[in-house]
């Protein structure tokens, strides 16, 4: 065996370990979701009795479908707002030299570092006072706030890569600053905008802390919060199958999304690191 093949085999061994470690839990959840409630705890990896009843079960109750609707709605709105606001902010950061620019960036980074759990208590009280508790805006506002810093950082590194001259050329060509942005800069920043959109959407989609604390009914409860509150079919059975099925339903779309755009996402996170 040559040095090269041995090296290759070594790498593949490491890949395999990583793949097994990261995929086994997912496979286990899928397996659980396909087991009958009685065999859920039998410990075998491959289900003995295949069933889709868990899936039909969760879609037949309002808890999960309402939560899915809430998750999609709240996630999309928060993400859209965050990306639009972040576009404007990132563009200013990339193009203008305004006083306090560094402070602005530092503060936005600090917001991202802020422990979210410490805000849950105050927000709970505040939301109850002003009537935002258990509503869509009650979740959209904190999601947007915590998504903005990441969006601004990712987007500004994208905008910075677009040469100044393009915008000046557009201005000389007769574009207003707004037209220059929408017709020249934004189309070029599309990969960055898509990347940011996906990253932010995943953050909102996965959030548990705010979802469990700031909601109480199907009015605004998102999937992660709803799953935690699944009732069993009887008080003596655990809703393991239902939870697994719900987890698969909400995980798969995200995985597909990431697989589709992974190249872009990596490019987005490392934009500016090396000259392209």
């Amino acid at each position: 065996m040559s040095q090269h093949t041995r090296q290759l085999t070594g790498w593949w061994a490491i890949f395999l370990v990583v793949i097994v470690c990261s995929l086994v839990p997912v496979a286990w959840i899928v397996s659980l979701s396909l087991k009958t409630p009685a065999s859920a705890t039998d410990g075998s990896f491959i289900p003995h009795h295949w069933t889709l009843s868990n899936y039909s079960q969760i879609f037949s109750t309002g808890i999960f479908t309402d939560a899915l609707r809430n998750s999609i709605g709240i996630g999309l709105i928060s993400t859209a707002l965050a990306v639009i606001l972040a576009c404007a902010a990132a563009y200013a950061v990339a193009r203008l030299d305004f006083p306090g620019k560094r402070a602005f960036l530092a503060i936005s980074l600090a917001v991202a570092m802020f422990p979210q759990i410490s805000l849950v208590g105050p927000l709970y009280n505040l939301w109850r006072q002003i009537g935002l508790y258990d509503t869509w805006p009650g979740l959209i506002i904190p999601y947007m706030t915590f998504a903005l810093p990441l969006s601004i950082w990712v987007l500004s590194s994208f905008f910075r890569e677009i040469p100044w001259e393009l915008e000046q050329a557009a201005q000389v060509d007769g574009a207003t600053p707004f037209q220059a942005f929408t017709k020249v800069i934004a189309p070029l920043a599309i990969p960055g905008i898509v990347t940011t959109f996906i990253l932010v959407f995943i953050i909102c989609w996965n959030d548990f802390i705010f979802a469990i604390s700031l909601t109480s009914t199907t009015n605004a409860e998102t999937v992660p919060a709803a799953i935690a509150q699944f009732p069993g079919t009887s008080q003596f059975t655990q809703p393991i199958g239902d939870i697994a099925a719900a987890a698969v339903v909400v995980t798969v779309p995200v995985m597909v999304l990431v697989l589709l755009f992974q190249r872009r996402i990596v490019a987005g996170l490392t934009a500016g690191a090396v000259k392209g």
Partner: protein
Amino acid sequence: MAEIEFDDVTKRYADGFEAVKHLDLDVPDGELMILVGPSGCGKSTALRMVAGLEDISDGELKIGGQVVNERAPKDRDIAMVFQNYALYPHMTVRENMGFALKLAKTPQAEIDEKVSEAARILDLEQHLDRKPANLSGGQRQRVAMGRAIVRNPSVFLMDEPLSNLDAKLRVQMRTEISRIQQRLQTTTIYVTHDQTEAMTLGDRIAVMRAGVLQQVGPPSELYGHPTNLFVAGFIGSPSMNFLGGEITGENVHLPIGDVRIPDELRRRLESGPGGGRRGVIAGLRPEHFEDASLVADRSRGLTFNAKIDVLESMGSEFYAYFVVESDQVSSRELEELAQDAGAAELPTTAGGVQVTARLAAESRVRQGADAELWFDSNHLQLFDAESGRSLLASNGARSSVEVPAGTSAQSSN
């Protein structure tokens, strides 16, 4: 079509640095004006003020008789070609060229017509549906030109449009630009740091240095009658040689011999301070040297001997380098030129000044050997050693130095 007027225009940055100082310059309708100077001289800033991409701190800028200081770039009816072309990467060549017209809400049929007309002029017809990334440097440059000409603007602004091309393509595009400008007769300001481009392309050239306009005129005038050392050293390739000298009475004493100065100049100097004696810097262009054996009538100039250190053959001519014993001429303007050329770090020639001479291909001088050279002193330039101003061009009277028969001296080296 429009005239551009700079009226006492100054560009001052927030930190107080003045990039352009009190610029007065008229570019008549249809003229191709070249702004030339070393990097950092303010030429690009001046251009960008015309484009509206830089604010004007002081003074007035008029395009077509109207003050445009406060107008946005889009309201100035200008088109600009950028140094790196600034083509929109997400648009095809066709869309790039039609972008301005589309913004102006021109009907699509008219856009198509104008774009294909421009593509025909620039030989881009087969590339109209390609993206800029798939084009060669020369093609991109032509697209940038095309984007400017489809709009039929009243002013073209070009910011070193050829500097990203290789040497051969640059020459080709230079003639192309000249042809297009003559055909369209659009007022054009063209910025370059390349004096060859300036000399070959411009109707008139404006030389700038450190934000200050040095001289404006047709290429031949800048070449033949530079007003100061800076212009003299900047225009011409290879550049002018400078030797220290002294005017005594009716002659100027140079390390390679004495030359008689014009009466008019002598009278002017005598009436001034110093009574006719003063230090000068003499400017000698390489092309006004010749192998003395090839000159039929040597009485018009100086004949002298020099040891040729290096001889370079260009095929059509020789460049001969030799050292003349002379004090190192120093002047702020010349130092700046040397710095721009990157020569500041080079060691100065010990005990003298290196002189470049262009000799005819028939010359039989050899490297390392003594040669008898001749300088046509009709073309001698004289500058005041202190101010750097030309002594010949002052008072508007342009006189050239003449050498009466018999005064040509031999100089041993």
